[in-house]
């Protein structure tokens, strides 16, 4: 008898999730599997894909970026005007309240910008440092001054999220991060680290209440587990679907794969200050570029989900020129160039990668290694954990000190359709991931970053691309596509900016 009871109890416990699902007749819930917890709920302290899912659902900027990253659309500002090269006037949306009831007014804009630029606090404010004073004209009009002309000012503003001044200043930063309050289409409900982040539709959202009532984000680090969750129907959207699993997902009548051309450009980065001697010769770098069959790489390892690149300028970027096309695959030309450079028998080099740096980080680099091997460049692939690579290449205390592996795979995902950020970070002397020194580039980058005349700016961009293309301080490979697995019960298209936004989703 007792045993029977035990078995019964056990069965009930086992069936609980099933019963649970049955009981969920009420609010519509969409569950999204991420690779990890978002690091913070504080929009001024977090970046990257996992943080973005949280921020762009909870918060709004003055302006927004369209899903394809090409257009600036109104958000908390309904209109704006450039008074001169460094002065911008914004008319704010009226009747907007934060999730805690605080009204959104010009004071919030001023508070937010000053909080972001607080020199005594940790902020991801690199894109906003050109912002100067904020003048409040009235409750719904502000003027923002930039210290230098900034052609990408509006783009940058799209990810400067507005926070409520009274609430934010009354609690600690840690508390704000754990209980974020914004104006966005979703409100914060609950966040249990390692388990789930729950958001709830904001009934009063100025852009209309989103149709999905609840969003649940679950951190699931292992890709095969995420796929299993999708197949089991326990999760509706998964990020980072393995390219090779796309046919499998599409063959399931309940599932489909969604892809968008992402924003991450993948390239080979090099230490041109103190790296291996052969790399210092532009002919060797050209030979390497010719030796890589980008299309084959994409068609095979990436299952077709990638676009070959000439430079890290993506097609939608300010000043992109189609004149530059990806280096063709020409192993004979590569061998000639190597011979010209004095390496008729090639050379040995180490190539560092990490599975987490780009999609299929190890396979891609191994394949490139073999392609380089075909023209005589003998590559030893080093695969390390992502943090080892980040620690080595981001903010290196002594670039040029020869303390890094000379050749490494890297990616850059600009949050806007503008090249200022990657140029500053990768090419400009002193950039956070720069391993080169070229005054000509430095001057061009400064002009690109501050030229307000579009035509002139495009001309500068052309010169930059020409130089990037010919001198190859970075060897551009391809534009990485983000692939998601989606349950067919959802109408949803992947965005280019990597974020899964609840208001883009409807349940069929």
């Amino acid at each position, binding site marked *: 008898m007792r045993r029977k009871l035990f078995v019964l109890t056990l069965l009930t416990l086992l*069936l609980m999730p099933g019963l649970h699902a049955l009981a969920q007749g009420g609010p519509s819930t969409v569950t999204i599997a991420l690779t990890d917890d978002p690091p913070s709920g504080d929009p001024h*302290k977090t970046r990257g894909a996992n943080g973005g899912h949280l921020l762009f659902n909870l918060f709004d900027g003055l302006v927004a970026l369209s899903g394809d990253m090409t257009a600036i659309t109104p958000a908390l500002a309904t209109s704006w005007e450039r008074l001169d090269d460094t002065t911008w006037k914004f008319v704010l949306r009226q009747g907007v309240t934060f999730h805690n009831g605080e009204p959104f007014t010009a004071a919030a804009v001023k508070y937010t910008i000053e909080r972001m630029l607080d*020199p005594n606090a*940790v902020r991801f404010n690199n894109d906003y440092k050109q912002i100067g004073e904020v003048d409040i004209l009235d409750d719904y009009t502000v003027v923002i001054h930039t210290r230098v002309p900034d052609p990408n000012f509006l783009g940058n503003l799209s990810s400067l999220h507005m926070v409520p001044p009274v609430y934010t200043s009354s609690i600690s*930063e840690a508390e704000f991060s*754990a209980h974020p309050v914004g104006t966005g289409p979703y409100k914060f409900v609950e966040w249990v680290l390692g388990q789930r982040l729950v958001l709830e539709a904001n009934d009063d959202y100025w852009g209309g209440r989103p149709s999905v009532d609840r969003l649940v984000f679950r951190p699931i*680090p292992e890709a095969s587990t995420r796929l299993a969750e999708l197949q089991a129907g326990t999760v509706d959207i998964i990020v980072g679907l393995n390219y090779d699993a796309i046919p499998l997902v599409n063959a399931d009548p309940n599932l489909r794969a969604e892809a968008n051309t992402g924003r991450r450009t993948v390239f080979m980065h090099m230490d041109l200050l103190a790296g291996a001697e052969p790399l210092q010769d532009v002919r060797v770098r050209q030979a390497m570029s010719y030796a890589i069959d980008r299309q084959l790489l994409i068609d095979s390892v990436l299952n077709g989900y990638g676009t070959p690149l000439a430079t890290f300028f993506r097609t939608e970027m300010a000043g992109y020129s189609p004149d530059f096309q990806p280096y063709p695959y020409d192993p004979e030309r590569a061998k000639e160039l190597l011979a010209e450079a004095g390496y008729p028998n090639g050379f040995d080099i180490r190539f560092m990668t990490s599975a987490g740096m780009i999609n299929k980080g190890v396979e891609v680099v191994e394949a490139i290694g073999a392609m380089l091997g075909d023209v005589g460049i003998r590559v030893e692939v080093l695969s390390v954990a992502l943090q080892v690579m980040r620690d080595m290449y*981001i903010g290196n205390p002594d670039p040029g000190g020869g303390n890094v592996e000379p050749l490494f795979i890297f990616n*850059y995902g600009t949050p806007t359709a503008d090249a200022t950020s990657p140029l500053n970070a990768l090419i400009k002397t002193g950039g*956070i991931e720069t391993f080169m020194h070229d005054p000509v580039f430095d001057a061009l980058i400064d002009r690109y970053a501050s030229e307000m005349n579009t035509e002139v700016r495009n001309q500068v961009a052309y010169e930059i691309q020409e130089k990037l293309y010919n001198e190859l301080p970075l060897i551009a490979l391809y534009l990485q596509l983000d692939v998601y697995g989606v349950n067919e019960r959802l109408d949803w298209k992947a965005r280019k900016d990597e974020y899964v936004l609840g208001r883009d989703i409807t349940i069929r």
Partner: protein
Amino acid sequence: MGRYVAKRSLQAVLVILAVLVFTFVILRAIGDPARLLVSPEGSRENLAQIRQALGLDVPLYVQFVRFMGGIVRGDFGNSFTFGQPALPLVLQRMPATLLLTFVALAFAVPTGMLLGLVSAVKRNTIYDNLATTLAVLGRAVPNFWLSIMLIVLFGATLKWLPPSGYGTAAHIVMPAFALSAGLAAMIARLTRSSVLEVMRNDYVRTARAKGLAENNVLNRHILRNALIPITTVVGLQAGHLLGGAIITETIFAWPGVGRLLTQSIYAYDYPVVQTSVFIIAVTFVFINLAIDLLYALIDPRIRYD
């Protein structure tokens, strides 16, 4: 005995201190957390800002004094990644890890001992071969391989169990089984060899010669003595599991200490790593102290002076 316990407890505290110091020093040797926290789109000024905010801009000994001073006050610092106090962050993960450990052990210990006993008593028969093969298989199948197979089979294909996560009894079945397979196998092998070893000992033969019933011999003499190495191993394993089954927790998205530790090590999140290591060390050291004392109870031949 009382003096022994006191002495061992003092030593335990020293061990924990050694672990803490070791962790503190070695963490600072592996890399710069600011470089992992800074946005790749950031700048060098951002980097300096972060370093200052995290208190990493002061000399090492100052950091150490602050760290030890904090511990005395029960303040383990704030997570670099999440900005929240580290101690609650770690303690919040303990229930999940405890639960997983307990269920895995509850399955592994009886199963393993039964298998081991069968193969020892029925030595060199088909039963022994079967039990041995089963036990070896448990160990030979890599944990993550088994875990993913379970998820694919029972989670994705048959849809009997939730593939991953935490919350209901159904969620624990697969991770606990995956964890216990290796454990049960290990216990089975050790039981077999210890039982065989004890069975050959003189006092067992004597007991048999005295005409004690076979069951009695098995219970009173053999199992009792065989328990020593088994306890050691189970203790070790329990300690390891309480430190979080890193791979199992990662694959099953189980929100335990192991997952948190992995995350924080990967992020060079010093406060969380230090706190987790501290908690793990405390648990581990005291479990082992308990086991050493248990020896005295199981095997009266061991004397403590």
